[in-house]
């Protein structure tokens, strides 16, 4: 047990206690949380800053607004419903089309108006928000994922998670939906998480839960070696999200749209630690490298250049940094 503890520490693995105590509490001021906890606010901020996000079709704010859903989506047969304060993908419904009077979800389930209205009403009443506070529901553009990912994902939209520490992208992974995760790109629902080499943007082996997988369980294609398109844009967008919010330790969720390229889905002020398992690399080591060698007043380009140099896979001991520099 003690041996495992030491070996994790020597790998620079970040634990929950340390993430909370030394990073979130230190670099994420509570007052800035609303900017990321409310997806509507994040979306508006991003639009102002010229960062691409899925188009907003409308907002359902009250019980009364639920009837307006049909109007909002009249010209958009495909759309996504998201509680603005939902966490970990809870309460998200993605509609991929219609069959007669019913809505068809991305996983092929048919929902009638009544079910959707009930779901929206639950969401407005705060069933999916932290602490159960009343919420609003965002109706937005449904992302169409690039064909590139078809080989390694089952339905749904894969998304890229980048951990950004004080403006520096430090670690990234792609989350690939599986049958078990019901097409959701959510690791604790059973999606595959695959690490990404920050320098090249190619994927590494993946994990499901805590188990390492080399092939996607549904498509049986190898997970590693996929080149993420527009990788430099993704890095740039993530790095700019630091200036957007001022939060020092965030997870940026980005989707790749077939037509529109990378879009920011949401930001997370308490990003999970599973990304370390997906990369099989400790996050703490990278954060320490950043704290030791990075210039936190640098511009976006320098920051990305630093990240690509310092965090090319695999990242070695902290002591070896002089060579990398």
């Amino acid at each position, binding site marked *: *047990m003690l041996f495992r503890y030491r070996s994790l520490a020597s790998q620079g*693995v970040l634990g*929950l*206690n340390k993430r909370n105590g030394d990073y979130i509490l230190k670099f994420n001021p509570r007052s800035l949380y609303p900017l990321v906890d409310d997806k509507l606010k994040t979306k508006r901020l991003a639009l102002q800053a010229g960062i691409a996000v899925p188009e907003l079709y409308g907002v359902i704010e009250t019980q009364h607004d639920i009837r307006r859903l049909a109007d909002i989506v009249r010209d958009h047969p495909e759309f996504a419903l998201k509680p603005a304060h939902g966490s970990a993908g809870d309460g998200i419904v993605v509609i991929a089309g219609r069959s007669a009077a019913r809505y068809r979800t991305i996983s092929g389930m048919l929902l009638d108006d009544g079910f959707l209205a009930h779901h929206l009403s639950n969401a407005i009443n705060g069933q999916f928000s932290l602490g159960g506070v009343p919420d609003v529901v965002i109706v937005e553009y449904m992302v169409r994922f690039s064909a590139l990912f078809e080989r390694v994902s089952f339905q749904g939209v894969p998304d890229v998670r980048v951990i950004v520490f004080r403006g520096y992208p430090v670690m990234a992974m792609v989350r690939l939906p599986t049958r078990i995760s019901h097409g959701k790109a959510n690791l604790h*629902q059973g999606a595959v998480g695959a690490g990404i080499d920050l320098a090249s943007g190619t994927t590494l082996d993946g*994990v499901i839960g805590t188990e*390492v997988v080399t092939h996607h369980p549904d498509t049986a294609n190898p997970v590693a070696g996929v080149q993420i398109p527009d990788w430099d844009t993704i890095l740039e967008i993530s790095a700019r999200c630091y200036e957007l919010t001022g939060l020092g330790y965030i997870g940026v969720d980005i989707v790749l749209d077939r037509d529109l390229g990378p879009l920011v889905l949401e930001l997370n002020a308490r990003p999970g630690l599973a990304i370390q*398992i997906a990369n099989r*690399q400790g996050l703490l080591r990278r954060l320490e490298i950043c704290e030791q060698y990075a210039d936190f007043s640098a511009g976006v380009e320098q920051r990305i250049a630093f990240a690509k140099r310092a965090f090319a896979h695999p990242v070695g001991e902290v002591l070896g940094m002089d060579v990398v520099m």
Partner: protein
Amino acid sequence: MNNRHIYILAAVLTALGLSLFFYKSRVLGFPIAPQAQTQIWTIEAAVTFEPGPAAVKATLRIPGLTPGHSLMDENFISRGFGLTTRSAPAGREAQWAVRQANGTQTVYYRALVYRDPNRKAEDTTPAFPEPPQLDEASKIAMEGLIADVRRQSADVASFTAELLRRINQGQADQYIRLFLDRTSTAADRAHLATVLLAGAQIPARVAHGVVLRDRAGVVRPEVLLEVHDGEQWLYFNPATLQQGLPPDFLIWWRGDEGLAQIEGGSDLNVTLAVQQSQLDAIVIAERRAQQLGSHSAEFSLFSLPIATQAVYAVLLMIPIGAVVIMLLRNFIGIKTFGTFMPVLVALSFRETRLLWGLVLFAIIVSMGLLIRFYLEKLRLLLVPRLTCVLTVVVLLMAGLSVLSHRLGIQPGLSIALFPMVIISMTIERMSIVWDERGASEAIQEGVGSLIVAALAYLVMGIVWLEHLIFVFPELLLLVISVTLLIGRYTGYRLLELRRFKAMAPGDDAT
């Protein structure tokens, strides 16, 4: 805000808590173990006399300076008498007076006495005694005796012991024969010793007292000789020559006078009686704190009404339960529904006992979940649905109580103490987790909550811990400092070691 700040704060709180704790336990004698009993004795003097035709005054000597023992409570019981107490050279005196009385009169003095090693004899050194007034023959005999005894002794203690030995020989000793006749009592001999010691310029006095026995009944006063050696009082039993104050000897009064006197009456008779009983050590400690002028007892929880005390006995244990949860969450990494929900469940286990608590909790939550899944179908709005679940939970509890009562299962009745609002919220949270993350996660978190609640219950139920926290609430300062220190623990949690096992180099696939 660096760690040193926290360390200093934690150290200060710990020092504060511990020093209060030690003061109360060591100096004031608050018991560390639960249900500690202290022996106490009820001493009683019954004074009977026949009043004369006119005013009557009865004087009783009562204990004042009692080394090794303390008085807790004094009562004077009499009907129609005026009462005064005052200090006299022989100790304290109580005087009953009445202008007119008919028939045999009895007045009582009653006191509670407990052993108190901190109580010492007064430390003022008495003046050298006046040489006794004796006729020429006696004086010569005394001087001869003193010279004799002095030759065979080294200090005050051995001088006294030798003198008492000579006195005890009585008629057989050539000098003593002059002072004592055949019918001398122990008191007479002790008195003679004080006279002879005065001749040798050693302050001495006769102390009368009773032996505090463990069986109830009448006791006779016994005599001790107190001798001052220039620094402290020494005690001698004039009959056995034993030196030192017996631990169960309560000094009642001093001097050569009797225990009681009467003016204007006759047939004076005093009976002393002793009865032993047990008293909660806490009561004695409070009493001692009062005597020492400490306010710690006045401001302690014991000054509250009993019902309120019972509430605080439970409330003070909540932080302990919270500490258990903190350890399990931050060191082990167990997931629970709600941060402190398990503490509240653990509190309700106090009434139901653990096994029944677990069973009842599982029954209610699983039935509530069934109802909740049914309500989900009806597509109720959130708050009405919660209200509905809450109502169903209350009905379930009532039903279970009635059912278990019919079946004669007693613990089912105490189910009413379950925190039903918390249970309703737990059901709601659990069903959402069930929907969103699957049944296994929901059951895992539910079982985790129950395990934590059971552990918290077991820790909160440790009797001596409960006693300790209630008698010494300042120990909660230690809890705060532990919390402060753990609040800065940024190491791994136990379950994280398993979670990140793919990253340990030994079993790394890459």
